[in-house]
């Protein structure tokens, strides 16, 4: 029996801020506002239509005040980069239950230029201040690096296999004019790039950019009267199983194993139904682990799954088709940009170009937040 909430709401608008990449003359909240207005334009809706606000990083009152919106529904779920993927599920739920009509999810970070951003250094009497900060782990890279080391130990995963992800993702970025890094790279380039935190070289790590993004949802019924081809939200799942990396129950199996299962079950689709995947790539290992946890391959076989450029353009598993956080943009909490690209692929926005995944009907979007701490998985479908 299909889930009664499945497919009742749709994504109707997506957009970046006016510029992304290096935007030293704009504050983080300004990037929120630009993306919000652009996404509403994309949908053919007005700010006055918005009655629900979702954000992370900033508080919903901060963003709503700046925009001049007085929402009847507010959701400030803040679980790092996965927040915005989780917001999609929460918005779809609220819409399906009649609690709001037009949901606006906004993101904006001046990750590179640090204009209007808060400090993230933990206070010395907090849990991270007492039990993690004193040992000099650069966060978040060191946390992901330690999880990756354990995977290499347990399953023989290699740096060459991790590099396959960076190389394939760059190929997609080369077709995206908005991508920050577009020059082709090879596996040897990844392995010889500057060492950041073993086992990660520079090209195993996401970019640090300035960018905003926004997503607009409404009911499927209303969506069909708007500008864009609706993209239905078929299923969603969320989970977290730790905050500190030293408390992660299993460094080689994260909360994606829970959020993914819930999303697939709710949508009533199987892995073979997925035409396109947008998987949070803060680091190469993030992707490898997530593909295993979501069940696209068996535990320990993520390295083999991504080898031979299987996720590159023309490969059997099109993934991160805008260039991901590794090559397109990553201001800090990237999840919204995965939602945007999954939507654009399913709308067939790139029809007639090699970037379009042919006949894409169903996609999976997955966000990872914190230090592999929190995940959100959504299944989207072209109406």
């Amino acid at each position, binding site marked *: 029996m299909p889930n009664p909430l499945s497919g009742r709401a749709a994504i109707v608008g997506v957009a970046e801020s006016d510029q992304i990449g290096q935007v030293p003359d704009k504050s983080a909240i300004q990037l929120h506002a630009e993306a919000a207005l652009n996404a509403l334009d994309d949908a053919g809706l007005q700010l006055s239509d918005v009655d629900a606000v979702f954000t992370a990083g900033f508080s919903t009152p901060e963003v709503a005040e700046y925009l001049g919106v007085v929402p009847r529904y507010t959701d400030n779920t803040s679980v790092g980069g996965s927040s915005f993927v989780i917001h999609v599920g929460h918005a779809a739920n609220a819409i399906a239950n009649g609690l709001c009509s037009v949901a606006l999810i906004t993101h904006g970070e001046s990750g590179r230029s640090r204009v209007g951003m808060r400090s993230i250094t933990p206070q010395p009497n907090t849990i991270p201040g*007492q*039990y993690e900060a004193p040992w*000099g782990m650069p966060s978040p890279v*060191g946390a992901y690096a*330690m999880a990756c*080391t354990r995977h290499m130990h347990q399953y023989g995963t290699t740096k060459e296999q991790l590099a396959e992800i960076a190389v394939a993702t760059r190929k997609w970025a080369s077709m995206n004019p908005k991508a920050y890094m577009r020059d082709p790279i090879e596996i040897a380039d990844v392995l010889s790039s500057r060492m*950041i935190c073993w086992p990660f070289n520079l090209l195993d790590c996401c970019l640090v950019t300035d960018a905003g993004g926004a997503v607009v949802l409404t009911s499927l019924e209303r969506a069909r009267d708007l500008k864009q081809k609706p993209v239905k939200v078929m299923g969603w799942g969320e989970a977290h199983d730790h905050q500190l990396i030293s408390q992660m129950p299993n460094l080689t199996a994260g909360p994606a194993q829970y959020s993914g299962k819930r999303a697939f079950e709710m949508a009533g689709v199987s892995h073979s139904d997925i035409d396109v995947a947008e998987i949070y790539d803060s680091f190469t290992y993030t992707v490898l682990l997530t593909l295993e946890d979501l069940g696209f391959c068996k535990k320990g076989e993520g390295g083999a799954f991504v080898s031979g450029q299987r996720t590159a353009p023309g490969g059997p598993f099109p993934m991160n088709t805008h260039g991901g956080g590794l090559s397109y943009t990553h201001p800090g909490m990237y999840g919204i940009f995965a939602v945007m690209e999954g939507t654009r692929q399913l709308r067939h926005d790139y029809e007639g170009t090699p970037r379009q995944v042919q006949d894409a009907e169903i996609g999976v979007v997955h966000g990872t937040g914190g230090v592999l701490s929190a995940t959100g998985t959504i299944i989207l479908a072209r109406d």
Partner: protein
Amino acid sequence: MSEPRSAPPKPLPQPEPLAKPYWDSLNDGAMQLQRCASCEKFVFYPRAMCPHCGSRDLQWQRVSGRGKLHTFCIPHRHPSPAFQPDLPYVVAQVELDEGVRMMTNLVGVDPDPAKLMPLIDKPVEVVYEKASDQITLPKFRPV
């Protein structure tokens, strides 16, 4: 030539009241952890309740200071100038024999992945490193 600038101090914990016995035990060179009187599991980091069973009845108990290297990374860059003079070094997680895992540094080894990978799941023991008059940090070395 300019004089070498001294690095700023590293961030040190400011123990919350509940955790004082833990930090005191490190100063004494005899690590204690909380153990749940109800389910008998050890608890780390120190808490007001057992995350395994919800009991509030936690008691401090001396532990061995021995465990196994669970994983590591080797930072070659760090945003804080406090850590930059030490780069590269080994940040590690150790699983104590009592079943809890903690963040630490592995000391007495080269920051060389080829030498460190074979040490995973192999025994390590605590080294008490005095960081200030108030704080001793637990670090670990291979046995």
